[in-house]
């Protein structure tokens, strides 16, 4: 089954895993029809916990459940799980390395209509700053299926952010997800783009637009933490410039962690993302991405500028 929506891919993968693994429990805070936790509830009502509009309590209950051997997948919008339940996640789940999977749905700008209050532009920064936390941002629905399976097998706290909208896959269906493994989707030598989430697809389109003038390598970095530092340094060894691309603030997200990883290297880094601003409402996703210069042509322009500024 090919999916074109990360939420549906996630929800249906949970259902499939739940068939063989009764330890998987799913929790929601009155948004299960959106997070697709609803699919699990329909199939295994006794293993789905509707916790009401009380995210802080949900995450602490998840922590308690995990100590009884369950693998809780706690869902809500990314702004709410990473924001309202930050302290609960930090104090008990992360310090105790509890086996809780925190899934932030409608992440980034993907909840285009709801505006700044519902658009999580700092969730990866918040979760990534917490020791013991793994942070995953799949590129598309195919990768979401694989990542959901991978984080269920991994023992420990994980934050995974998912996009709300339908869009085409750029990763291979059925390819196993390895936490901490960057994935080269397009080879090139002049510029290396480290992209995550929806921006992986845009980076590939941008690279194609530039194909006649610049050779661009596009790497899908779905594991923001632990960042595969040595592997990224190896992948960038011949490039003149690195470009990072994320649907997240450039403060604390992929751009920041790449900057940290390359601090001891001379290679210049250009960061594409949200420039320390909140989102806003729009009538559709494309319109909002365009507003923030997150389109294939805008990304191509940034790559080009960066390359010509640093190619000598």
């Amino acid at each position, binding site marked *: 089954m090919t999916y074109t929506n990360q939420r549906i891919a996630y929800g249906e993968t949970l259902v499939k895993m739940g068939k063989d693994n009764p330890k998987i429990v799913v929790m929601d805070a009155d948004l299960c029809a959106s997070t697709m936790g609803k699919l699990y509830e329909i199939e295994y009502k006794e293993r789905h916990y509707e916790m009401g509009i009380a995210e802080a309590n949900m995450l602490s*209950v998840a922590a308690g459940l995990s100590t009884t*051997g369950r693998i809780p997948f706690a869902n809500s919008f990314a702004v709410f799980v990473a924001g309202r339940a930050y302290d609960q996640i930090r104090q008990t789940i992360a310090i*105790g*390395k*509890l086996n809780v999977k925190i899934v932030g749905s409608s992440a980034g700008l993907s909840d285009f209509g709801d505006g700044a209050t519902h658009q999580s532009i700092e969730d990866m920064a918040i979760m990534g700053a917490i020791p013991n936390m793994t942070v995953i941002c799949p590129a598309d629905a195919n990768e979401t299926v694989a990542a959901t399976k991978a984080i269920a097998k991994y023992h420990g706290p994980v934050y995974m952010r998912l996009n709300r909208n339908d869009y085409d896959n750029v990763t291979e269906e059925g390819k196993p997800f390895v936490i901490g493994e960057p994935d080269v989707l397009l080879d090139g030598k002049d510029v290396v783009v480290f992209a995550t989430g929806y921006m992986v697809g845009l980076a590939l389109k941008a690279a194609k637009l530039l194909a006649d003038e610049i050779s661009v390598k596009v790497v899908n970095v779905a594991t923001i933490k632990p960042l595969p530092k040595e592997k990224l340094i190896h992948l960038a060894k011949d490039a003149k410039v690195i470009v990072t691309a994320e649907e997240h603030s450039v403060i604390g997200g992929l751009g920041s962690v790449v900057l940290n990883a390359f601090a001891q290297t001379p290679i210049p880094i250009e960061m594409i993302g949200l420039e320390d601003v909140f989102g806003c409402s729009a009538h559709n996703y494309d319109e909002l991405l365009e507003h923030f210069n997150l389109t294939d042509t805008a990304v191509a322009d940034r790559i080009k500028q960066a390359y010509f500024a640093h190619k000598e």
Partner: protein
Amino acid sequence: MYSKEMIDDLNNKAKTIRRNVIKSIGIGTAGHVGGSCSSADLVTALYFYKMKYDPKNPKMENRDRFLLSKGHVAVLQYAAMAEAGFFPVADLKHTKDVGFHLQGHPDYLKTPGIEAGTGSLGQGLSLGLGMALGLKDDGLNSRVYVLCGDGELAEGQIWEAAMAAKAFNADNLLAIVDHNKLQAMGPIQERLDITPLPEKWAAFGWHVIEINGHNMEEILTALDHAETIKGKPTVIIAHTIKGKGVSFAENTVSCHNVLLTDEMYHQALSDLS
């Protein structure tokens, strides 16, 4: 119902535990004397009368769970756990030593027998609910005991958990409120007035038992009675005296977290002799 000998033994045990709290804080160091002493009889009754556990096998599947939601009195829980045999009593004086297994607040990974990390107030009841739901689904008759401070009840999450516990009919979950009426900076009633407590918990659908938290017979009766309540969670509201048993600390706000001088240290041990 309970033999005088058993009650006397438990009261003596509580006194030993209070003494060990003072010893583990030591001279010239600050520690949570007030809240440890107000909760000491309740914690003694749990560890030495009510709860089933095996200190040699802290992960025993059908053990009861204890959560110290008021995690700042970790030193009290450690004193009880040492007496119970989880680790040597001699470890207590090394509490907070860098790299040692006894941290300033309960630590799930470092101390065998600690069921979850607590310390950020207001979260223990939710943690306990998660455990209670899992244990019930596993068909175990284990019970989950959560000790909350009364000042902590100002945290909104306590009431999220209270609603959720009723929604899931978590009758294997017992909350105990150490109602000593004082918080770190002064009387609770002069801050966020949490009263009337019995009415509040009852309105959230809980079975409510109100006791004197320093009367061992009342504590045991309440713990045993709570087990018979089915279909909803139970809360024991235990009226206590902050600093109970230590003359200078009783009902003294400044003894919430107090640096013990040489004189205070010896006074406390003499009060508890």
